[in-house]
């Protein structure tokens, strides 16, 4: 019944490997977002999307790509993972013009060794 789901919930990757984090929403929201959460930094925006086929850079996009193949799905891709990308990643959805209210997934804990 959860409206925003993420997979995997936990991931261990090796340096230089490719990692794909997936997000699915059933809210029928146009906007979707990827954040990372690190102690002392709160949440920082990596990429976002206004709808299927669109991706936009957020505040910290370096080292990340995003893909929005459909209204429901939004992926975050780390082509060459590095230890500095060890973090908890959150996906969120929101209605058009509604960045003021967002609905979050449960998060993915990524460890890059």
């Amino acid at each position, binding site marked *: 019944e959860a409206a925003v789901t993420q997979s995997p919930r936990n991931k261990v990757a090796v340096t230089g490997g490719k990692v794909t984090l997936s997000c699915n929403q059933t809210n029928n929201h146009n906007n979707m977002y990827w954040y990372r959460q690190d102690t002392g930094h709160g*949440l920082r925006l990596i990429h976002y999307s206004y709808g299927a086929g669109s991706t*936009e850079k957020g505040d910290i996009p370096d080292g990340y790509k995003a893909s929005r193949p459909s209204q429901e799905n939004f992926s975050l891709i780390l082509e060459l993972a590095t230890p500095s990308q060890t973090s908890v990643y959150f996906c969120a959805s929101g209605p058009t013009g509604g*960045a003021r209210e967002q609905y979050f997934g449960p998060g993915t804990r990524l460890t890059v060794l």
Partner: protein
Amino acid sequence: TQTVSQSDAHVTVFEGDSVELRCNYSYGGSIYLSWYIQHHGRGLQFLLKYYSGNPVVQGVNGFEAEFSKSDSSFHLRKASVHWSDSAVYFCAGYQGGRALIFGTGTTVSVSP
């Protein structure tokens, strides 16, 4: 630069006590402000928001927040906390454009 700041990293209260979590913003013009709660190991959940009108807004589970333009603040309050209120609380601002800007969060620990 638009910023949202939360001055208290950690607050400890006893069950039944009141709590106030501080949030200050630096924006020009009108702004949406909101509060989110994050329980351990979970995603953020929306608590309440303010844009205009009555500066005191009510949220879920007895939370309320008060907007003050003169103080550039949007503090969150609860009159009587429960152990289940132990969580991290985030203040966030939005003024159009890309997405929310979050504060660094305040961890609330409720002792029995």
